[in-house]
């Protein structure tokens, strides 16, 4: 009566799946980006603060820089804002903001009230640039090296520790390689 063994067989498959899920080396928060190691997608968008100016990453070729994706609708972005301001104070690399799916007035208000950590903020009204970059949600922070390649992507709010342990060593390595 093999059919009475079916539930057991299905259960064995489930156990295999669960055992895989328990694998300690598996990181459930890691969302691998297909972009890592590839050239950063180019964009040329208007500046949030001044619609007549253009913000483009083409002018940053040869420099290591950080792209931070945010929006005023995003609660976690507000949470990381303090950390970004502190990081901007260190003047290690240019920080470019990508204001994603937002309203210009709200974004202006945000930057004037909370402070502006960015060297420039590109205004991505329809989220098309964000799609090019493979953004899942905000906040996300990308690190681009001197050859214009994306070398690191960090999801969830930026903190001083993450900056210290994940970003600074990679920035140093990218500079050494570029030199």
């Amino acid at each position, binding site marked *: 009566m093999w059919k009475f063994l079916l*539930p*057991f067989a299905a259960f064995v498959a489930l*156990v295999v799946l*669960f*055992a*895989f*899920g*328990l694998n300690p080396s598996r990181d459930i928060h890691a969302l*691998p980006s297909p972009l890592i190691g590839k050239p950063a997608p180019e964009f040329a968008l208007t500046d949030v603060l001044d619609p007549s100016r253009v913000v483009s990453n083409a002018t940053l070729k040869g420099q290591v820089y950080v792209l931070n994706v945010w929006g005023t609708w995003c609660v976690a972005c507000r949470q990381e804002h303090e950390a970004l301001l502190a990081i901007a104070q260190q003047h290690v690399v240019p920080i470019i903001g990508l204001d994603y799916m937002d309203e210009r007035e709200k974004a202006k*208000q945000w930057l004037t009230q909370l402070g502006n950590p960015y060297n420039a903020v590109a205004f991505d009204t329809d989220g098309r640039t964000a799609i090019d970059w493979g953004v899942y949600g905000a906040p996300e922070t990308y690190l681009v090296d001197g050859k214009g390649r994306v070398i690191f992507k960090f999801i969830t709010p930026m903190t001083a520790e993450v900056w210290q342990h994940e970003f600074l060593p990679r920035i140093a390595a990218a500079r050494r390689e570029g030199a």
Partner: protein
Amino acid sequence: MAPELGIFALILAFILSLSQAFFGLTGAWRGKPVWMAVARPAVTGQFVFVVMAFSCLVYSFVNNDFSVLYVARNSNSQLPLFYKVAALWGAHEGSLLLWILILSIWSVAVAAFSRALPLTFSSRVLGVMGLISAGFMLFTLWTSSPFLRLIPAAQDGADLNPVLQDFALAIHPPMLYTGYVGFSVAFAFACAAMLEGRLDQNWAKWTRPWTIFAWLFQTIGIALGSWWAYYELGWGGWWFWDPVENASFMPWLAGTALIHSLSVTEKRGIFKSWTLLLAIFAFSLSLVGTFLVRSGVLVSVHSFATDPTRGLYILAFLVLTIGGSLTLYAWRAPKLYAAGGFELFSREFFLLVNNVILAAVAALVLWGTLSPLVYELLGVGKISVGPPVFAVMFLVPMLPLMVFMAIGMHSAWRRGKLTATAKPLWWLAGAAVLLSASIQGLVFGELHWLGLIGFSFGFWIIFSALLEPLRRLRQKQTLTAALLGMCIAHLGVGMFAIGASGVESYKIEKDVSLKPGGSFRIAGYDFKFLSAANVRGPNYDAVQAEVQVTRGGKAVTLLEPQKRHFWVQQTSNSKAAISVNWARDLFVAMGDPLGDNAWSMRIQYKPLVRYIWLGAIVMALGGLIAATDRRYRVKVPAAAQRLATPPDPNAELGSA
């Protein structure tokens, strides 16, 4: 002193549950009445010590003993007393202790109400329950003791997570666990029947009330969780298809199928192996849910802090209980085959359809929940399954289920012909559609396909459920509790269908920015933001907004949503203000201050949303009434009570 006593009591309870398992199972196997006689006192002793352990932890919480690590992590001296007690099950360790307490309450109830059953059978049931208790106690003692000391003691506690400081959420876990754990009774009955190698109609009769009780608690537990998510998370949604919600929904689906399948086995003696399998599934899915919530395998907003040892332990426990019971099933179920068919459109046929659909929905939800893990295992990449996918997976099978429900209530056992009461069904279906369309046109002003379908099915089921009780009342015939309960539970399903489809079709949600004096209109209601002021709670500060709601110039209500900031955890949380009446909810939640006294606010109009939870309560009420039916209280004839020597497994098979 209290935590040490607690550990000691839990160790004693563990030993007693082992002896309950050993003497109950081997006693029945070897046919030794003296051994079997140990099982009941062991259950009582286990219960006493579990209560003692639980009380010790309550004592530590109430007395702010921050030298207990678990108390220091989850409570605070400023926390109101009610939440100090509820904080006990606010995290992994304590909620396991709650689980154990509830299991021991079920065990005591089974021990008390199973005296009329054959001794070998009740001993086996208690033995299996003892194994489950022992498994959970060992888990707690080994990996998750809530009694560990913190030396030196903390000055004050880290406080209970603010989103858990809420009435509905305080009572949600006890209700839900009562349901989850209650399915262990049906599971133990199924294992005992397979061990005995005998399953007759009496077995279904004994199992059914226990299953209904577990099911009704779970129904209420799920409804409370949904209600909590609706007003506390501030989103206004009522179901999110989150892995943890799914973990509670899957056993509910299997349990619902089990209740229906048991009635076929009870009346006709068929579907035996299927009923057994559902009894195993309902509890297994509860255990799988526990694994998913506590192992960190899936990402969820509800997950407990995780630890790989715990995941590994639960997995091993799953392999032993589920694997063991399914092996037993593969070995014994083929022998329990009962001859006996049924006709198309008989009661049996409709209940089979119900079972197939409910099991399919449970399987789909399981697939949806686990598929991100499957994709990752196969190396296809990371995916997430969103609510739209689940909604389709749920809705498509539900529509035929509702049709079969409305008709099936008027089917007869054995005969493939509907009863005379079914006659008005067809024109009632037309009336339901007309009624739905006119409500839509006149009240909501637009036709919406989902709303039309949901309303029509909902009203049709309600009409159909009322037909038989009304006929019997008119003709002064008796109405059994079982029939009345069934009709009421189905009426609840109709209410749920109307509520769920109504709110999904006609809800309005707006995020707006308002300054004092500003107003916003949705669904004919004007929401005027009057002012915002600081208020102070027992353990938080808050900004409270006054929002005046008017309709056509007439005052409707004053809503006072709060944005709370909790001192200890330094987190904010939005407390929505909701105006409720029989037709709709008006919902205002505060977002963030936008400067210049302006606030972002989420304003929502939720028509009929209350019928979702009211429907669930009515379903549970129906279950309660059905479980009190006389036939479940009638004592088994004395002949069945005689002490059975181990029966020849083949002699009793298919005796129905």
